[in-house]
């Protein structure tokens, strides 16, 4: 039948109305494996090359700083020229990289193998490579634990302020405001210089003494001064999350506060918390090295990257490399952690993805 050119009739193919075959169904509906928020974030992190490389660098440095001291033949505090029952051998002091002392050369000539001093030795005849490795370990540990302390205190006070509201909230937030407006570095230096003297006698005889009063002082300072931004952040998160419609919906549906905390508040806060903790670590390392450089850092003979750099400054004209090595390591760690933290933020902050 010929169509009338003015007719609105559509040519239909009856085949178009058949049920879809299995093959077609598979083509149309692409089922993807369900993905969790965490897995999504990891995928994004993996795609971010800069953050991924920084992560690998940080992991390598961390593992090296933990493993190497266990298998290294020299220790960070041992003055190699100072053997019991023998006069001090000054030829161990200030060795250049890969150089050997007189007695070591004799032993090598006798056929013994002597482990090389990769970065030479310092002015007291201590193997410099292991001191750098150990200093890295100390710096990383201080950064990590200081951040954990900040996290715990900030989270506790922040969530108390956020949940309790009213007068408690006001008092905590005023304290935060005052601490926040204090010039932090000056206060840190002041506290560090006083605490190392006052803490010494208190710690005597306890387990903490082995860590040294200066590191404990550093932790106390972080506990006192740096929890503010974390507390503010968490309080803000809790306040804004409590106003969300889905929390209201859950409440309407009869959910208890335990359920709301577990399913809504914690998962929504956790990425922000992890990210700001990750970004706190380089900050803490920065502060520690700064204090060590001013002579307020770790107790001797324990090295940290800052104190190594500070010691090296005295002989900088002849032994410049001793300053350059810890300098490079600090910069690598801080840069790596910062880039990794930025990557974490890009990958895990749900608000940025919106």
């Amino acid at each position, binding site marked *: 039948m010929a169509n009338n050119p003015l007719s609105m009739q559509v040519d239909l193919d009856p085949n178009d109305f058949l049920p879809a075959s299995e093959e077609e169904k598979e083509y149309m509906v692409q089922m993807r494996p369900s993905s969790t928020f965490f897995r999504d974030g990891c995928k994004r992190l993996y795609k971010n090359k800069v953050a991924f490389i920084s992560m690998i660098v940080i992991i390598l440095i961390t593992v090296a700083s933990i493993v190497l001291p266990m298998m290294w033949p020299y220790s960070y505090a041992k003055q190699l020229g100072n053997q019991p029952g023998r006069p001090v051998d000054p030829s161990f002091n200030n060795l250049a990289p890969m150089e050997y002392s007189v007695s070591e050369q004799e032993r090598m000539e006798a056929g013994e193998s002597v482990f090389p001093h990769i970065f030479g030795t310092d002015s007291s005849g201590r193997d410099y490579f292991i001191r750098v490795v150990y200093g890295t370990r100390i710096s990383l540990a201080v950064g990590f634990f200081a951040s954990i302390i900040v996290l715990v205190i900030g989270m506790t006070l922040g969530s108390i302020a956020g949940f309790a509201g009213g007068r408690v909230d006001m008092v905590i937030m005023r304290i935060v405001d005052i601490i926040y407006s204090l*010039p932090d*570095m000056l*206060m840190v230096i002041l506290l560090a210089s006083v605490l190392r003297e006052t803490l010494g006698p208190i710690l005597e005889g306890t387990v903490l003494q082995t860590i040294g009063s200066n590191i404990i002082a550093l932790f106390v300072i972080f506990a006192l001064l740096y929890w503010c931004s974390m507390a503010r952040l968490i309080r803000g998160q809790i306040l804004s999350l409590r106003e969300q419609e889905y929390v209201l919906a859950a409440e309407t549906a009869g959910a208890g506060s335990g359920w709301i905390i577990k399913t809504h508040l914690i998962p929504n806060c956790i990425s922000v918390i992890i990210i700001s903790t990750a970004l706190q670590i380089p900050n803490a390392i920065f502060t520690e090295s700064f204090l060590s450089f*001013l002579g307020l850092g770790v107790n001797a003979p324990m090295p940290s990257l800052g104190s190594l750099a500070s010691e090296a400054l005295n002989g900088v004209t002849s032994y410049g490399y001793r300053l350059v090595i810890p300098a490079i390591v*600090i*910069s690598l760690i801080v840069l790596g952690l910062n880039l990794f933290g930025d990557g974490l933020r890009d990958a895990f902050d749900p608000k940025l993805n919106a």
Partner: protein
Amino acid sequence: MDSKTLRYIVKRIFFSFVTIWAVITITFFVMHAVPGGPFTREKAISAEAQAALNAKYGLDKPLFEQYTTYLVDALHGNFGPSIKQRGRMVTDVIVDGMKTSARIGIIALVIATVAGVLLGALAALKRNSIPDKIIMVMTTAFVSMPSFIMGSLLLILFCITLGWLPANGASKGGLILPVITLALYPMSYITRLTRSSMLDVLGQDYIRTAKAKGVSERNVILKHALKNSLIPVITYFGPELAYIVTGSLVVEQIFAVPGIGRYFVNSITGRDYTLIMGTTIVLATLIVIMNLVSDILYKVVDPRINLE
């Protein structure tokens, strides 16, 4: 200026006074918590001499009385005599050190701000070009480098390896490296700040409108884009000054500059109570005032910002 802005400013000024008071109080009580007095190092001192010294510096009075006296004196700009530097007043020592430090600090501040804004604007305008990438890589590296590392490396490079500049800050041309060391970090920070805010501004509708009106490229950049992207830079003035003040502590140590930062560090190792307190208070007040100024400027410059 509406009443809301005014109220904000008054509140902010009041709060700054509270902060300064907190600094003085904390400094005072923290310093007095140290076991032993400032004279414990000098061992060969008799009990009478000790008592006489304590009486001379008012250390024998009750703590609270010492505190109130100190508070009143500090408000009058009198921080008492220096305990270790015989016959010198703390105020004189600070003023003396400030001359050098302020010179370095102000030059560093100006260089950092001007160079940072220029580099940031350049990077934003030539986005993804080779200069942009170079600027971003350099600034990322500088931001991650503690000031003492930067200073030490510059010292090795320019004073020892190349021998172009003197390592001693007191000699001629010796202040060049301290200034550069202090300026590099804030400059990098401002560069990144300007770049991102400039990119943000360049994407705004009013830039397109200005271009559509036929405003020349130069005027669009200078009058519309750059002016608006400078707002975040203003907020950075406070932290920038704080950085330069604390940075000067190590930088003056590295380059042996006779400035207030060096006095501060030396007074801590020498336990010169009054000098430590005086220096802390002066530097802290400086930082608090600068924060106040940059906060107020920020609100005044950009009326869109919510005051509360």
